[in-house]
């Protein structure tokens, strides 16, 4: 995104307009079970009155997933070859000749067909998942995919949307950006925000052993971070603000269980497409259990007393 941009749309745009939907390296039937039924595939839209029948569904996945099974076209790509396939699609789109018979396991003629399908669509929506962002090439795959979507906009309308998970990660990125100018990996130690992923990102700091205490809020580092980072977490004091028992809380010295937003307290979460949703409080939290916000406010107050 920082290299190429971010051509996106809110979720119902695809519902109303998309006649071509591509899921790339994600399996929404299992990972985002309501995505297809609520937004871009099955529902009837303002300009797509017949719902699913009005749309072509392409799935790019090395496995024959349940999502791939209901696709009109399944591109069974070889693992770790996303970058190659995106490049081939871009080459075909930009009028270059692909000399190989196959790219990333996909026959060249199919690549040309897919490009034709994309160009002749009135509105294309590409959704991508962790299968592309966390395999070989990582963020460079997305960089290339963004360029593909941008190239396609010279012919028709095309957007992309990351299939973000983990609830409100986007909310953190948004708030961090308006407060500091950066969306993550922010180092405040110089008295102003510094951002240099690879240097100031959590995993790298932990791996280098530069961190001597950790406050973990709603993240599950224990389940998702590399072993070397976790080894360092085990050595240092860890405070978790976390309502559940997780691999991370197993390592914690102190656990502060907060009220659950949307159940025991209110709040705002940012959806994967950036739409903010207000969460309501339905029941009282157990006695003495505070919302995250209040826990943090109290911590800040205490810290200020020591300064």
């Amino acid at each position: 995104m920082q290299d190429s941009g971010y051509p996106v749309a809110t979720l119902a745009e695809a519902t109303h307009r998309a006649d071509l939907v591509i899921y790339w390296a994600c399996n929404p039937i299992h990972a985002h079970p309501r995505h297809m039924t609520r937004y871009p595939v099955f529902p009837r839209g303002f300009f797509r009155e017949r719902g699913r029948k009005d749309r072509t569904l392409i799935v790019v996945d090395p496995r024959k997933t349940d999502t791939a099974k209901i696709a009109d076209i399944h591109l069974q790509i070889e693992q770790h070859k996303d970058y190659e396939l995106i490049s081939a699609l871009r080459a075909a789109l930009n009028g270059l000749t692909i000399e190989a018979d196959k790219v990333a396991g996909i026959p060249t003629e199919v690549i040309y067909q897919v490009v034709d399908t994309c160009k002749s669509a009135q509105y294309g929506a590409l959704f991508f998942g962790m299968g592309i962002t966390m395999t070989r090439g990582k963020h460079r795959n997305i960089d290339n995919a963004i360029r593909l979507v941008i190239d396609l906009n010279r012919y028709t309308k095309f957007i992309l949307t990351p299939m973000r998970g983990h609830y409100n990660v986007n909310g953190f990125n948004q708030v961090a950006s308006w407060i500091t100018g950066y969306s993550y990996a922010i180092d405040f130690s110089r008295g102003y925000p510094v951002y240099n992923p690879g240097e100031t990102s959590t995993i790298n700091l932990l791996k280098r052993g530069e961190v001597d205490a950790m406050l973990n809020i709603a993240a599950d580092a224990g389940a998702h971070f590399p072993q070397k980072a976790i080894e360092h977490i085990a050595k240092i004091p860890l405070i978790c603000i976390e309502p559940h028992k997780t691999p991370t809380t197993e390592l914690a010295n102190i656990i502060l269980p907060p009220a659950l937003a949307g159940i025991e307290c209110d709040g705002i979460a940012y959806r994967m497409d950036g739409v903010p949703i207000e969460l309501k409080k339905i029941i009282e939290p157990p006695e003495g259990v505070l919302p995250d916000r209040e826990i943090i406010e109290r911590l800040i107050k205490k810290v200020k007393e020591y300064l």
Partner: protein
Amino acid sequence: MELIIKNGIVFDPANGIDGEKMDICVKDGKIVESVSDNAKVIDASNCVVMPGGVDPHSHIAGPKVNTGRIMRPEDSLMEIYKKKGQFKSGTGFSIPSTYKTGYQYSELGYTFCVEAAMPPLKAKHVHEEFVNTPQIEKTAMPLFGNNWFVFNYIIEKDFKALAAYVAWVLKVSRGYAIKIVNPGGTEAWGWGMNVHSLDDPVPGFDITPREIIRGLAKVNEMLGLPHSIHVHPNNLGHPGNWETTLETMDCVKEIKPAPRVGNRETVYHNTHVQFHSYGGTSWKDFEAKGVEIAEYVNKNKHVTIDVGQITLDETTTMTADGPMEFDLYMTTRLKWANCDVEVETGSGVVPFIYSPKGPVYSLQWAIGLEIFLYTKAMDRIMLTTDHPNAGPFTRYPRVIAWLMSKKYRDEWLYNKVHKWAHQRSRIGDSDREYTLYEIAQVTRTNAAKVFGLTEKGHLGVGADADIAIYEIDPEEKDGKKIEKAFRYVKYTIKRGEILVKDGELVNEKYYETWYVDVKVGEELYNEVLNDIRSKWPKLYSVSFENYPVSDKLANSWKVVKIDATDIN
């Protein structure tokens, strides 16, 4: 708490005060006739005193702005505020983080700011950022020009229903005025298309931009909103667009202003008109039409404009004009963000480098100044840079210097920018230099009036004590000195409290977010609400109940209540 500002040279155009040496008295956050002997004295000798600045159009908060921040870490590196005592750190030159935005506005002596474009579906995001924006009062204009409900009510010619719908959106999104951006064009961009004239049909709907603008202008006056419709016409940034601009201004000419709050006398605000004053047919024969636009404004009293002056910086462009941003991207190939918002609008964000060496950019710069220099209707023109589109708001002081000093302007014109600027525009012919009275008009008085902010933009008794004091000789002609004086105020006082002293922040305060709550006839309102509610589930990806912005999303609200129950 009492204050007396002594011996300043006061410029207060709303009250006809043109550089008189006088004292200004403040009590409990308001301007008063006199104060007791206990009042704190501020010595303003050799200083100029003006009302706090009012920015009528600036993109400071919300989804687009934040997308710009996320997409452009390189912009953050260009300007950094370090943490200092109670003041928070921040980054960003063209898209500063929220605290820095507030701090910098108060360093310029500005105390009120209008966020230029708010998608109602993402209004919560705008208001969340407002909560973290100190030092200024703020308000936002929801986007209506590509909204499907608006289209349908206009197609059905049901203007009462449209009025009720607009009233409802203003209330639930907590917005202030009707913003129209590339009417019909952003909807067309939903299909990768655009509209190019006032009478082009909008794909998928039986409507034209002319009908959208006229319909909303009519409803604006039925509701009696404090501000007129706020329009970014079709064809922004395209050579030859000046004719579309004049046609758009002209299409609402016979509509009569009828504000129920404030004393606005106009029905149409053309924002960043510099981007809409282009002649020629391509970038090769591109030419200035700023003078023609200025002459139209001089003659036609229903129009106000803000300029959107190019400052020739590296900046970040952002607008709800989705197709324009894609065209812009195609010229730079740097990076392109876009977000189409269901049912309502779209947007694009593209970084842009306006190099003084570029012929087109230099001429754009000259066109903005042409509009400033040839406009004689000084009560209907405002200074903006369409922050951050034509340049960041922190460049207002430089724009002021270009306007006040012919010498400084010519130094840029003949030494710094490309020769197209003097060859293809008429700014070299103008000897005009703005007076401080005129600077006060374009930076505070006019904006306060056209937004119906009766207690802002002037220093009469009863006004809010929002005051800027600049250390400058009224006869100063040295561009650099003018720029410095307006960049860092001697004092910014808001509601009687000193926020900035000698260019340094001394106080961090949080103020109200403004919105308009118009009451239309109850029966009509319920009827329209039922209509909206019945169509809602098929249109939106959020529930009807989740759409409104809740009370919690402001430090405090300032509600402008309007009784329009005669619409029923």
